[in-house]
């Protein structure tokens, strides 16, 4: 019987996707698991696998089309079969449920197939550690250091099959060599005509949506403070000499995580029902990429050592640059650090990420004349500006947080214990 292939919902914010290209044409045989198309979401390019075997009977979306999630884009069935499925009216779409932020690397999520062979389009996602997988798959993941939460399962209820894991490993191992397109890059090409609007890349459109909603929805206020980074720089040099490379930004992430532990109200989300405190401190780092901005998340910072934070953030930044970042890597943040220090920026303020309480804008470390013990000295000063949600906190909370952050960064050995 014929099976509808729909535009899957590949992330919690995805509402539509661009059909970049078809990998199969009408009349061609497809097997379950074959890549049939490439789809661009607001975050990344993904391959769409067929979840049915048969003949590709009909293609309903052209390359370049922007298609709403849930829209039928193709029909797979037996040769000569008339698609029994009622023709969806133009623009008609299915309700698609995505319970939690989905990961899903470059591989497209494959919608679950229901018993009748029709796609429900529902991509089941389990809470961390509760993914369905056989003991063998769990062992393999453990041995390879893979978080099963990042692997899309195609078995019943999203069960992760061995082949899913193997494919994930293959993709992961291949990723650094190959060059999957940078996010935002493979948008349908358009010729630049002055004075005419150019369509936004998916990423640009997503950024526009997010900052607009934050700016309109969150009453921002900013508090600024200067931090003497002399000691922190000395610590960084010392560790580097001992073979532990880390960036100033890693020190700031660690210090922010420690300060957030003391002031959890800044590691929280606003909701109409009340404040939601987050048990984990997941610090997002704003990373500039071609065509926009990605905010990969260092998860569980409260439990991570400086060294671990450095390793994780290095990997995240690398993947962001290569365009191999996964959905999982860029979701779940509870606080954000935006650092423009490398551009010599003296100070700036940032817009709070949706569902977060605050964002820390970090400027450059600059030689500054200061007076200390009645003497004029040269200090390595850095401006930090905290934008905070006034619904959740007041100026004094932001000030206390920044004082704590300053104290930690100025006596950085505190971060080593």
């Amino acid at each position: 019987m014929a099976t509808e292939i729909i535009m899957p919902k590949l992330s919690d914010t995805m509402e539509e996707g661009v059909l970049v290209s078809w990998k199969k044409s009408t009349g061609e045989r497809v097997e379950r698991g074959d890549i049939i198309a490439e789809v661009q979401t607001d975050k990344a390019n993904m391959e769409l696998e067929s979840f049915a075997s048969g003949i590709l009977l009909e293609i309903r979306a052209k390359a370049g089309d922007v298609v709403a999630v849930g829209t039928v884009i193709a029909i797979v069935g037996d040769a000569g079969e008339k698609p029994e499925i009622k023709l969806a009216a133009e623009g008609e779409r299915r309700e698609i449920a995505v319970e939690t932020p989905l990961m899903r690397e470059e591989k497209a999520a494959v919608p679950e197939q229901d018993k009748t062979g029709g796609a429900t389009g529902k991509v089941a996602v389990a809470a961390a550690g509760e993914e369905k997988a056989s003991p063998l798959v769990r062992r393999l993941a453990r041995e390879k250091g893979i978080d099963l939460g990042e692997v899309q399962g195609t078995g019943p209820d999203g069960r992760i099959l061995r082949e899913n894991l193997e494919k994930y490993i293959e993709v992961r191992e291949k990723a650094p060599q190959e060059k999957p397109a940078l996010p935002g890059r493979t948008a349908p090409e358009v010729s630049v005509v002055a004075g005419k609007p150019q369509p936004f890349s998916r990423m640009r459109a997503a950024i526009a949506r997010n900052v607009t909603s934050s700016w309109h929805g969150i009453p921002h206020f900013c508090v600024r403070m200067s931090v003497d980074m002399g000691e922190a720089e000395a610590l960084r040099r010392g560790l580097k000499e001992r073979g532990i490379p880390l960036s100033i930004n890693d020190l700031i992430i660690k210090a922010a995580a420690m300060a957030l532990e003391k002031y959890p109200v800044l590691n929280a989300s606003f909701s109409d029902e009340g404040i939601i405190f987050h048990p984990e401190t997941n610090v997002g780092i704003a990373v500039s990429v071609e065509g926009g901005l990605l905010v990969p998340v260092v998860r569980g910072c409260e439990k991570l050592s400086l060294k671990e934070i450095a390793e994780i953030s290095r990997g995240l930044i690398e993947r962001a640059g290569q365009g191999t970042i996964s959905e999982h890597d860029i979701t779940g943040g509870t606080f954000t650090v935006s650092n423009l220090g490398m551009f010599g920026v003296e100070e700036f303020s940032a817009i709070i990420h949706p569902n977060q309480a605050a964002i820390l804008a970090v400027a450059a470390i600059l030689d500054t004349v200061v007076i200390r013990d009645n003497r004029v000295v040269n200090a390595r000063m850095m401006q930090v500006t905290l934008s905070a949600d006034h619904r959740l906190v007041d100026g004094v909370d932001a000030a206390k947080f920044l004082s704590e952050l300053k104290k930690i960064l100025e006596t950085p050995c505190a971060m080593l214990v």
Partner: protein
Amino acid sequence: MAEMTYRDALNMALKEEMRRDPSVVVWGEDVALYEGSFKVTRGLLAEFGEGRVKDTPISENTIVGVAVGSALGGLRPAVELMTVNFALLAMDQIINHMAKIRSMFGGQATLPIVVRAPGGGGSQLGAQHSQSLEAFFMHCPGIYVAVPSTPSDAKGLLKSAIRDNNPVMFLEHELLYNSKGEVPEDEDFTVPLGKAHIMREGKDVTIIAYSRMSILALAAAAELEKEGISCEVVDLRTLTPLDTATFTASVKKTGRAVVVSECWRTCGVGAEITSLLYENCFDSLLAPVQRVSGLDVPMPYSRKIEKLCIPQVEDAVKAVKEVLSQKY
């Protein structure tokens, strides 16, 4: 090597061991003059005489009890119960005496006894004469349980059982007596107790079976091969001692297991094997272990319904496909 039946292979083992060791004696119902209900003891009376081959009254408790006593006195009895169903009448001697004396007396006495008993269903013999009771004996510590599936194993295991100083319940399958196979005629040929046999190598799934179910597993494997499914078949040969190492190694290789036993499902041999797999191979399993077993019912007499209650080749095929399904 010679081609012979399972029945003749057992007969050969008895004769060879009686010739080899004068302390080996045989008794049971109709084993001497009538040469056994299934003709396994054919020719024994003629060759070894009334002193070593005896017909007994219809009293299973006596058959085993006398074996226990004479084993303590230095003989090596290899007695026959007409069918395993009648072993239930001898359970006190089997469980309370035969299984326990060696350890209760701190090893001062040995009990080199073999109790041969045919069993299994499939011949329309009704609820009381179609049973597979191996789990009862496997459950009890102190006795070995042999369950040969081929003529060669029947001979080799029986010879090992007779030579062993531990009591052995030697469970033959009534439907295998006429099955044929190559059997070594060598008098020194034995098959060790406690060593499973990989009857067929494969990579996709391990089928663990014993007795007639191993033959059925081979048939299922042949059928599945036509569909490109590669099954490894492990024949346990003995349930006690159980060669856990061999079947767990196989399942660690394939990642999937189907256990086929003719006995009842609940607390059956399959349940024990399955538990061992979960304990030993948890990290290697791709799918839950499947059990194929006899149904939990007193065996019906009707041929068609009886067939539904005993595992068939297609049941094993179905179970293999289940563990290989896209679900896991």
